[in-house]
């Protein structure tokens, strides 16, 4: 191994800089209230990390799965439960000597329970630049309805 690669240590997570970063985030929190940084600490602890949003018609589930082949991602829906599973394959290079090995491969299986039932037949998923997006239309009976008040 030769010393080809030198990280810039103050840009990582450790050391004095990491301590300063944590301090800055604490100050951020005190000044601005809960933000993403503090919310992100409350993850389910299951791979992949997921963002879920909704609007009037759909739920949207986002997950970052860089380097995965879309064919290796399994998505299934039962009632209001979405399940994501698959395997991220990282094949070691033949005849190569590693300087860094941070990317991890392996299997995953995660379920996400939504607030209401979804129309399973109309669920769509796409995978662009390593980001999975699943759009789940809410079931008709679960959609909010506008009720006109009679005068």
């Amino acid at each position, binding site marked *: 191994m030769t010393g080809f690669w030198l990280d*810039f240590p103050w840009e990582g997570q450790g050391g004095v800089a990491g301590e300063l970063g944590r301090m800055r985030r604490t100050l951020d929190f005190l000044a601005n209230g809960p933000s993403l940084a503090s919310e992100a600490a409350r993850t389910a*602890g299951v791979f992949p990390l997921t963002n*879920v949003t909704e609007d009037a018609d759909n739920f949207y589930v986002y997950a970052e*799965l860089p*380097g995965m082949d879309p064919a290796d991602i399994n998505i299934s829906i039962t009632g209001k439960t979405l399940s994501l599973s698959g395997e991220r394959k990282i094949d070691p290079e033949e005849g190569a*000597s590693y300087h*860094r090995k941070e990317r991890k491969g392996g299997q995953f299986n995660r379920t996400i329970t939504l607030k209401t039932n979804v129309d399973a037949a109309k669920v769509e998923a796409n995978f662009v*630049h390593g980001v999975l997006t699943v759009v789940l239309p809410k079931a008709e009976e679960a959609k909010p309805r506008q009720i006109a008040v009679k005068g």
Partner: protein
Amino acid sequence: MSNTENKDKNLVAKEKTEVTGPAEQTRPGRMYVPEVDIFEKDADIVLLADMPGVAAEDLEIDLRDNVLTITGDVQAQEKEGQVYMIREYGTGRYYRRFTLSNDIDQSKIQASLKNGVMRLVLPKVEKAKPRKIEVQAA
């Protein structure tokens, strides 16, 4: 790591690492450190970086004074009008720097991007061949 080791292993959720330090103040918004693999072969050094959400036109690779800087901008995945129910990761710019040795042929570096993984191939300079110097008899 061997192939078989990968097989039965379950992936563990890991929070994205935010960039801390001086670089962060140069620009508003969050910045994250991409995870990388770096390996060396006979003819070149290869760097793989996980940069999900980055399109090829938003990827910037800069090399000057032997410092390689990788930057990737990410467009927000969520559209306007959507309300968060679960938010486990943030999106923002990816940023990481490395110092290269002089042994890289900087004119032949190649980069490609597939499914959110950047592959950077850095060809090594051909080592100067050993030369035998004859001593001339006076």
